[in-house]
């Protein structure tokens, strides 16, 4: 049961964070917190420091879900750690520089470190992500593709293309900071030239086809 909870928590950590609310007052002020009571006359909101604020409805101009800046249009960055598992297991580390086009769509270019069969690779990749909700906590779907460059350049190790897909949750922890987690699939082909045929130019290329599930946890910066 503990394992179950641990896995669930790890994979869907975004769910444990409730969505924050934003109360906009006619005076121009904005209060961020969790609404604890809402009637025809009043609105109660509890802020992070534990204070409870009570406003008359006549003072309130709007009540919205709080969308932190980290999910607003503009540049952002992520770092993530992943476990690529299956018939073999390896870890990887990715850094992505992205641009949020709107509350739903973002795209970016990344670099990182992969390790397959005792060889280190430098993955260069592009990724697109779609947030299903326009909220601070939202499920997402991402797709990416790239090329694994051999970390140690050699004539034999050619690296190869890969593609990956993730589904998961992301959640804001502050105006400029968030976390995300996900599970997905990574496919790639890595080529290693093994053997010259009778001294001619014909070589046998050994292709490693990478089929891995991808468990990922990362941070978002703005």
């Amino acid at each position, binding site marked *: 049961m503990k*394992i179950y909870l641990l896995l669930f928590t790890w994979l869907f950590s975004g769910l444990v964070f409730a969505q924050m609310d934003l109360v906009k007052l006619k005076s121009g002020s904005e209060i961020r917190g969790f609404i604890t009571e809402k009637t025809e006359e009043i609105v109660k909101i509890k802020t992070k420091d534990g204070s409870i604020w009570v406003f008359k409805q006549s003072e309130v101009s709007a009540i919205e879900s709080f969308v932190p800046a980290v999910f607003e249009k503009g540049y952002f960055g992520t770092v993530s750690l992943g476990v690529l598992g299956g018939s073999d297991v390896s870890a990887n580390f990715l850094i992505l520089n992205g641009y949020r086009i709107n509350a739903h769509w973002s795209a970016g270019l990344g670099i990182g470190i992969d390790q397959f069969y005792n060889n280190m690779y430098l993955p260069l990749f592009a990724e697109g992500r779609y947030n299903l909700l326009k909220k601070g906590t939202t499920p997402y779907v991402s797709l990416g593709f790239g090329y694994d460059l051999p970390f140690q350049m050699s004539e034999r190790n050619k690296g190869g293309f890969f593609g990956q897909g993730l589904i998961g949750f992301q959640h804001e922890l502050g105006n400029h900071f968030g976390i995300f987690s996900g599970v997905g699939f990574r496919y790639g082909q890595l080529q290693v030239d093994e053997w010259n045929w009778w001294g001619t130019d*014909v070589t046998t290329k050994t292709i490693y086809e990478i089929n891995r599930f991808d468990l990922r946890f990362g941070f978002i910066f703005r």
Partner: protein
Amino acid sequence: MKNVIGTLLVLVFVFTACKDKQFQKYTANVPVYTDFETFRAGLGTVKYESAKTIAQKGNIYFKDNYLFILDNFEGIHIIDNTNPKAPINKAYYAITGITGIVIKNQYLYVNAYTDLVVIDVSSIENPKESGRLENVFEYAWPTHDPQYPLANVDPSKGIITGWEIEEYVTDKTPIGGCINCTFLADATGFESGFLYSNDMSVGSSSQGVSGSITKFSLLNDYLYVMDGNNLKPFDLSSPTRPSNTNQVGIWREVETLFTYNDHIFMGTTTGMLIYETGNRNEPTQVGVIQHANACDPVVVDGDYAYVTLRTGTACSGQQNQLDVIDVSNYSQPELKKTYSLKNPHGLGIKNNTLFVCDGSAGLKIYDATEPLTVGDNKVKTYGSIQATDIIVLENIAMLIGDDGLYQYDITDIQNIQKLSQLKF
């Protein structure tokens, strides 16, 4: 609890479904198959066609004024040599997979990959398949581009009738050589040989004259075929229904079969073997003489065998010479003399006259009346006649070079006269 088990099962499924794979990709000779039934009904049977340009020289067979030039794996060129001064390229028999030929009476015996095919050629213009022994030869395939490895072969798919050079993907290691195809590959890989006449003349006879590089040889009512590492006897007492019930393992690389005086002489890359055929169906080795690695066509006349060793071929070696071997005692062949040559290819002997095609040094003719001094008794050298094979008939020598077939009148060996040439 059910949720836990369900989740774990899902995770196990995901984990086990994600398996890395490893395979090889390389440019290779990829086989083109024709299933056995289609092959035997089409490509693997004889088809008469009009004469074709002779693109490559293969083995040659002569019988009843017709010269048969093999177009390896494709068919046979039929040359009407009734008038040696004006041979006529008459017709073509298309037979896919052919690399060997003999003729006994009116029946032509050839291989079509795995099958022995009997063709009635009593009418040259109307050849008819009159018998077939299926699957008697090892599974084999045509020559391939040696620049590239072979893709994996699946004999269950049928006969390999060709190759395509293309990118090949497999989880198996490429085949590094031509396994099980010695019989066919050697037939074309071996560039030269000799053609020899057993008391043949231009006229009618029961069996023809075979080229030396062939691995088909007739002896009495038996056809002997070198198939890979096995010598296979075929009983031809029923000409259209040959039978094969035995095979003899020969653990050397056999290049040529030569039958003489109820014995089989085998030229191998490492020596000459002698087999006696008292039991026609089970030849037994009686003698052997070793030599260094080289190509070694062999002819036998009386008590002596003449063997040329040659360098510069797939047989490698460091020798270019003519060996004279005493075979008066078949069980104890003995090297008697060795004479240096430049680059000897085919040779033939007739009426105590030995003809040796010595590459760019030309055709050399020796008086072999005294075999032990044959190398010292050179009668004539024709430097301009550069050939690789020779057939010696009573008064005619047929020489094969890279560019054509040449015929000479050898009535006067001091002054042989060109009769004709057939350009390839």
